[in-house]
């Protein structure tokens, strides 16, 4: 069981693009040498900003809903796990449907792998690999109560994907936590970031 007192807090604007998280994630024994964390450049021509993506551990995960093999399970502690090896048939439904672009399907292996909050570590009371090495705390794993005190921005766990409300276990830091974070493609299409 992962303790409910601890939360994962993502703050993309703190990311300095050092790729420590990518290196650390690849070290994990459950997916040896294959980092599950994504590090993307927002818009190379416009800005140096990079953003790390880990699984948001949705309350009603769309990845699991669209999985034909029933291979994605959410445990009672709210962690959404990688696909179950005997079941996954590598169809990519999850990869294409996840609202946050998290799962990776490795062709040839016919298997989806994704961030599982380093379950082997967090269920033992340790931090996920990426949060352990992130120097700017863009990836922060900490007691929820403590984070409220130490950051000006507050955690938000509700997202409007278009107009679909998605609730998550992982939080994104925002100055005005009362409103869900609205994700609208127009922002990218206009190039308006």
């Amino acid at each position: 069981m992962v303790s409910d007192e601890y939360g994962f807090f993502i703050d993309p604007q703190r990311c300095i693009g050092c790729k420590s998280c990518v290196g650390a994630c690849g070290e994990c024994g459950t997916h040896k040498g294959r980092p599950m964390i994504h590090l993307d450049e927002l818009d190379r021509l416009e800005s140096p900003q990079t953003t790390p993506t880990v699984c948001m551990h949705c309350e009603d995960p769309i990845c699991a809903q669209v999985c034909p093999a029933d291979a994605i399970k959410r445990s009672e502690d709210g962690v959404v796990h990688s696909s179950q090896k005997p079941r996954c048939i590598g169809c990519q439904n999850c990869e294409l449907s996840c609202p946050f672009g998290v799962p990776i399907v490795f062709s040839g292996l016919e298997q989806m792998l994704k961030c599982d909050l380093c379950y082997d570590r967090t269920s033992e009371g340790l931090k996920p690999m990426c949060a352990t090495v992130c120097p700017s705390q863009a990836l922060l794993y900490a007691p929820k109560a403590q984070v409220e005190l130490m950051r000006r921005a507050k955690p938000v766990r509700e997202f409007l994907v278009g107009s679909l409300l998605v609730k998550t276990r992982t939080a994104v830091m925002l100055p005005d936590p009362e409103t869900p974070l609205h994700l609208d493609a127009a922002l990218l299409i206009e190039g308006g970031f």
Partner: protein
Amino acid sequence: MATLGSLDLQVRPLFRAALTTLALCGLVALGSRGGRWIDPALLGYLMASIFAIFGVAYRYWEWVERPATWMYMRDSLRMLASRRALAVLPRLGLLALDQIFLQRFIEKRSLKRWGAHALIAWGCLLAFAVTFPLVFGWVRFTSEGLNQDRYQTWLFGLPGGTFPVHSFLGFLAFHVLDLAAVMVIAGCVLAFVRRRQDEGDTATQRFDLDIAPLLVLLAVSVTGILLTVSEKAFEGRNFQTIAYLHELSVIFMLLSLPFGKLFHIVQRPAQLGVTIYKAEGEREGRQPCKACGTPFIRANQRRDLEALFHRLGLDAARHSEGVHHLDLCPRCKRRLLAASQNRRLGGAFDPFAAVPLEVEPLLDGPSGSPQ
């Protein structure tokens, strides 16, 4: 959908499972000539098999009815009923060889995993191929007339070939299950060794999902081999007790089939349908991401996923300007989250806007030790 009391059984899968079981019982009655050829010593196995088939069929139909599973099932059935089937069938045969028989995708996951899995899978399939027809009375061996030196095979009550008792074929006929048991035991031992050596598996394995199925298979195979050992080396000492234990372990395995890890045996063929579906999608081409223009989603999957989103009540996942969330590639979805955070922060990209690090001590885990 209607449910049956607290068991939460679904009516349609229940009905289909009942039909499947009835069909099997019909085939048993037909193949064993009205039950005359059923070996009374195997009655316990027969009952357990029928229960297991009912359970497996129920879970299978329930699984197929899930909207996401049905999306592929429907497409595969349509394909097989269309003219394209002729073009696709040879490919399907090759895929079955590669994915179901040789299981090469597991070899790509890990060679050791493949070795263990192949031994267990081939051992089990061999044992199933021999035992089910015997238990159902579809296959039977008798002496050829009064000739004690030759065996006569009967298939569905009709005479098949004959073969000498003291021949390689005769030896194989009587020891094929021993061979299967040796394969399964070797595979299980390899699997245990691999699991011990693999730190990832050691950390995440679960007793009910990963260990218990291996223990059950080991119990079945070891008791099976002990039957031969007792007969050949110890003049049948303790044979009855071992036979009883073997029957118990087999019945337990059969009854756990619908609930446990072994259910994936009936799920795995779906991979063939998905591989063909992907190839058909490639023929249609990939559609570009509406944000970055990179082709990424196969046309058939784009269509079917939108229909699936509709069935799952996810229609609201549409952005302004008519862009469906499915029209964004995974990378753009990730960029969108950061871009949206930026916008809420007033468009400022200022890594120093947050509270300085010195008032945010790097935290240790609950155990107090720095990680």
